[in-house]
């Protein structure tokens, strides 16, 4: 086409050329917009629906086609008559503690494996590699029985203790995060540590002032993934936290709707909107870290 204009042979009238171009644009690109709208509808419809239902005043997920017909804060106000905020606080405390613990321990372990050559290093790494293949959650019966015993000794570490649940989650932290971090630590040039060492820095100073700053992206990724996993866990928190005031959001909100007959969907949808906010915001603002974390170790370059 460009050759034809170069030769000055503008045989094709402008209007018809525009039509051809438009047709081609439609064939190659344009049709993707309606398709995108369809995908967006598929992805976002349930979420729009939960938002709409949360503002409705009736207590059911009524199957009406009229989204956003009503705006009432009733459901949100009703949340404070339940233990919702207590559960939300529990979920946040647990998830944040696990994030801090998991990042600190995982980064320290990755640093040790990446920078020191010690006896048993290969053995530990290999064992860790095998252990991480087995999901910790599968051992939930043994965890339950272990906490039953520990509770006899120290009630703070027994069943129905938030601290115990945090410890259990931290037990799974090293297995699932070390390799992700280890790979990233290896990409930080060793020359930097050596320079620091020559300048008289101790290993702790090198770690805190140099390494930790350079590996921030992977720390963010691990923090995010850990937060999401902990926030959404059900099976362990359900088993360990027995009293209602200790429940997390996952356990508590399951109780609201698990019984089809007494389900309180109004409360649930309002709670769901609030409960999803922290995770939703984290995802939207830290998208690039998620993609990095998901593909790290497999997609090189």
């Amino acid at each position, binding site marked *: 086409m460009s050759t034809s204009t170069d030769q000055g042979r503008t045989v094709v009238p402008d209007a018809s050329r525009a039509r051809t171009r438009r047709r081609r644009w439609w064939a190659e690109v344009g049709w993707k917009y309606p398709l995108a709208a369809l995908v967006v509808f598929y992805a976002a419809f349930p979420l729009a629906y939960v938002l709409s239902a949360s503002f409705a005043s009736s207590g059911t997920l009524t199957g009406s086609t009229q989204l956003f017909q009503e705006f009432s804060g009733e459901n949100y106000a009703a949340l404070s008559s339940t233990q919702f905020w207590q559960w939300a606080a529990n979920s946040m405390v647990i998830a944040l503690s696990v994030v801090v613990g998991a990042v600190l321990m995982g980064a320290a372990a990755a640093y040790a494996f990446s920078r020191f050559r010690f006896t048993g290093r290969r053995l530990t790494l290999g064992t860790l590699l095998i252990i991480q293949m087995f999901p910790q959650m599968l051992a939930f019966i043994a965890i339950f029985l272990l906490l039953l015993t520990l509770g006899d000794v120290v009630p703070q570490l027994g069943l129905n203790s938030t601290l115990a649940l945090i410890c259990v989650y931290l037990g799974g932290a090293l297995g699932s995060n070390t390799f992700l971090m280890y790979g990233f630590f290896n990409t930080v040039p060793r020359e930097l540590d050596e320079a620091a060492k*020559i300048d008289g820095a101790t290993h702790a100073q090198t770690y805190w002032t140099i390494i930790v700053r350079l590996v921030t992206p992977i720390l963010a990724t691990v923090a995010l993934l850990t937060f999401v996993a902990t926030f959404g866990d059900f099976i362990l928190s359900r088993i360990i936290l027995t009293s209602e005031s200790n429940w997390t959001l996952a356990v508590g909100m399951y109780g609201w709707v698990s019984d089809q007959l007494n389900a309180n969907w109004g409360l649930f949808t309002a709670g769901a909107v609030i409960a999803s906010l922290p995770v939703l915001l984290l995802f939207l603002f830290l998208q690039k870290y998620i993609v990095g974390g998901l593909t790290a170790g497999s997609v090189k370059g």
Partner: protein
Amino acid sequence: MSTDTTAAPVRDSHARAWEGTGWGFAVKLVLMAAVNAIGLYVAWSAWDVDQWGVLVASLALVVVADVVYFSRRRIAGKYLYPGLVFLLLFQVFTMAYTLYVATTNYGTGHNSTQEQAVEALLIQNERPVDGAPTYPLTIVRDGEDLGFAVVDDSGQVLVGTADEPLAPADDAVVDGQVVTSLDGFEAVDLPTLLADPALQEDVLELRVPTSDDADSGSYRTREGTRATVYASSLDWDPEAGTMTDTTTGTVYTADGETGQFVAEDGSTLPVGWRVGVGFDNFTKAFTDDDYSGPFWKITAWTFAFAFLSVGLSFLLGLAIALLFDDKRLRGRAVMRTLFILPYAFPVFLSALLWRGMLNSNPDYGIINSLFFFGQRIEWLTDPFLAKVAIIGVNLWLTFPYFFLVCTGAKQSLPSELSEAARIDGAGPWRHFRAIQLPLLLISTTPLLISSFAFTFNNFVIVYMLTGGGPRFTDTSAPLGHTDILITMIYQISGVQGGSADYGLASALSILVFLVVGGISAVAFRRTRKLEEVL
């Protein structure tokens, strides 16, 4: 080269090293003091309740911590120790313990040692002794210790606790039949008792021996105002290892194989104890009438669910990634953000939300009312449709993950390849089949495999969406058509109350461990990660 740099500070004097530490050293001291204090506290408490395993473990951990952190060497250990402790306790130990439990009959009726089983049986079979007097009762307490104060027929007040048999108390003040004041105890009045359920439970469990002779029975109460003498209808003979029912004369003999007291006619006492059963639990899953049928169906469905979920999600994610990673499209960032919304919504909320949306009654379930013309479609209660629903919802949940992954992988493909293909005359389909797909599969296969392993154990989606239902009709076990192995384990483990079979559930966990471990091992071989890492 490195030896030169490390050798220098070692030869330096202590004074210089001290300058370098400062507040960091102070922090370390405080932390180590705390660690030691906690460790010793745990050890001490363990000693108190005879938990020798906990005692040894906590002492060992404290000693290792001190050695690692106060030695000048073992630098790697200083960084590894905290993570390894949690890993050892809550993952390695629990995995090993699962293996142990799998070879026992641990569960309802087989919870503890034989000694404790005997004690439980004796208490369970306590009956009020015929003709024994019933006395007016006042609950008394001394701090945490509860006791009974009764007024006998002569008006004499007798006081006792669980450890102290009933004995006369001369300084008691009695108002009618109620003891109001007592030396060394505080009287609990009835309103206080009625307002405190925990206290009520303790009172109902309290047994005050009538005398130093353990067989003479003990005082108990049913309602907190009257106490009478109870004695067990069972008689335990430790020498012979038999339990004799004193009312019927039946002799139950301890059977070390099954961990139960068995009579000659084959009847058993309800409380047994824990014994090793070898591989019985593993065979039970395949042979027991209640479990073997569901077990095979559930295993088949678990594999089908994992394959279909991962496969469909991958295809959808891949298609969307290929279509919309197009530089000519505007608003790609917005599209991407909207596409990944399902992934950013916590899974437990999504599953519960879909449970409501898929309600079969079109008055409540929006899916039926909006997309199926208000038909009553039993999404969650029909065995086949429930499976479709689970896979469909999981598709919605996970396609954004594969969309993100495939977009990332596609963008990292070198663009020269596409150009070369175009120059060689490959059409779009050929380009996709022969170039893009193989390259994308190389980078996404490990993620596909780990995603498979994850889906294999996706407890939340099944438990939240259908709860495993609809129930199988041909078994009494609480299992259903959409249960996958992990929810099956959860149901029969009984950790949520109901009848517990820790042994069988652990044995099934081990089987799942093996499947998942096998899958992961294949994944690692494929990516050759092993060689790369070590």
